[in-house]
């Protein structure tokens, strides 16, 4: 009774979270027996929250992402997006992969409109217009007609981000998107992403194995354990936005990073 009245009174504030995980578990059947990738993952992500998932390699981060994307079916528990169980891929979820994986034969602009072309079969003038706007937003104005091979790694990943944003998803899944870039480009891309996200907030689930990247970008950092992956810590990062280059060297940033590093200390494969 009480809960119902609350909904009536507060309205949208109690709207279902963007993502919620309930007892999520994933066991792969492999040639050498079952492999438990995830166990009992329970958490939810509010709308427009930027959540970083931090953990050692092989902790099931990518499995988690594929479950949300609807590319995998969980062996136990489930994932909900906006209160609806995810049983197949949804249009309101976009993915940015670790590698840009652009189509080498298509121009930058054609790569950005590719999801529309692939799903619907044709591309409207508005779609192209939007692609050019997005490219300008990620700092690639003037590169529309170039081929991916003519761009640097960082620029290619910008195209990857523009491609994921083109369908205007409510939820953006990012699978270690900057891990293939050099340290400087990586930091630059992080701020670029924050700028885009602050201008047009979305729910972001950002998978990374870099402690500093997680703290610098996210509202909240989920730390996962090694296999089977579980969420062992859920930390809010209370550093004010907008964050900048100065943030990365601030005392609070160092405190958070130090705390997280202690948590992950027993796992030497985790880098900062």
């Amino acid at each position, binding site marked *: 009774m009480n809960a119902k009245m609350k909904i009536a009174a507060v309205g949208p504030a109690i709207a279902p979270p963007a993502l919620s995980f309930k007892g999520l578990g994933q066991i792969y059947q492999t040639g050498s027996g079952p492999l438990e990738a995830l166990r009992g993952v329970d958490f939810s992500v509010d709308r427009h929250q930027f959540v970083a998932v931090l953990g050692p390699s092989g902790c099931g981060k990518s499995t988690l992402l*594929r479950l949300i*994307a*609807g*590319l995998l079916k969980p062996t136990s528990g489930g994932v909900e997006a906006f209160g609806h169980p995810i049983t*197949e*891929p949804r249009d309101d*979820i976009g*993915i940015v*992969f*670790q*590698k840009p*994986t652009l*189509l*080498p*034969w298509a121009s930058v602009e054609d790569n950005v409109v*590719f*999801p529309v*072309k*692939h*799903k619907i*079969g044709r591309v409207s003038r508005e779609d192209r217009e939007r692609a050019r706007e997005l490219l300008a937003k990620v700092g690639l104005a003037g590169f529309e007609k170039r*081929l991916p*091979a003519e761009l640097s790694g960082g620029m290619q990943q910008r195209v990857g981000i523009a491609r994921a944003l083109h369908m205007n998803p409510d939820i953006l899944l990012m699978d270690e998107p900057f891990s293939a870039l050099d340290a400087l480009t990586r930091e630059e891309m992080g701020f670029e992403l924050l700028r885009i996200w602050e201008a047009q907030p979305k729910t972001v689930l950002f998978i990374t194995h870099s402690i500093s990247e997680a703290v610098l970008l996210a509202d909240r950092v989920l730390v996962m354990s090694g296999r089977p992956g579980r969420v062992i810590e859920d930390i809010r990062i209370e550093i004010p936005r907008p964050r900048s280059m100065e943030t990365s060297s601030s005392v609070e940033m160092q405190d958070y990073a130090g705390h997280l590093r202690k948590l992950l200390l027993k796992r030497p494969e985790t880098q900062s």
Partner: protein
Amino acid sequence: MRQSRSFRSLVDMPFFLPAATFALVVILWQLVADVFAIPSFILPSPTRILGGFGQIDLARWLEHVWATLRIALIGYLLSIAISLPIAIMLVRSKLLSRAFYPILVVIQSVPVVAVAPIMIVVLGSEDAPRIVITCLITFFPLVVSTATGLMATPEELIELSKSLRAPAWREVTQIRLPYAVPYIFSALKISITLAVIGAVVAEFVAAEKGIGYFIQFSTSFFKLPEAWAGLVILVIMSLVLFQAVAVVQRVLFPWSLPNEGR
């Protein structure tokens, strides 16, 4: 100093070195044939081979060239039309792949030269057996290479396609096939030269026209300079066809070439 620099720039020209080497080999060949007076039925000298071209008139040459070229091209195109769908089928379905792949290997293991006489008996002495023989020799590299290319597509793009819930055939036409283009073209280049071989083999068995027929006819009368002339024409034909495929790739799919080829 200046002389050596101009020599370097000459050597750096893309065609100079192979052309010079080739010319040297021809000159040596001529000298050896003349000095040791090698009979022309063992090794005709280049000038004798040149003479061989003059033994029949141009119209007859063209007739022979066209006969061989026609079979090679029809067989080649038919082979492409057959092998691309087979490759797609093999990649799309594990079941079909397990069922048919061994059969493909068996077909490939059959020596085409040995099958040719059987084909002629079964299919008659017209174009049909020659086209089939050309197909048989060309289709295996095309199927295997195309299938390899279709499977070389990055997993992320297949996931992207799945996450969009796009129709399955678009995964093939918009992602897998274009990704296979470099692989398809390496096979197309191999197969075009094999197509010429297939057409010639078919002519050896039964034909009354074509360069293969002409070579066999000439050798049976010990007209070796003519036979060598026919051989030279076959080599030129193969080279031109190979280059034609390379040009098609460069014009239509420039992105599929390695960087230095652009």
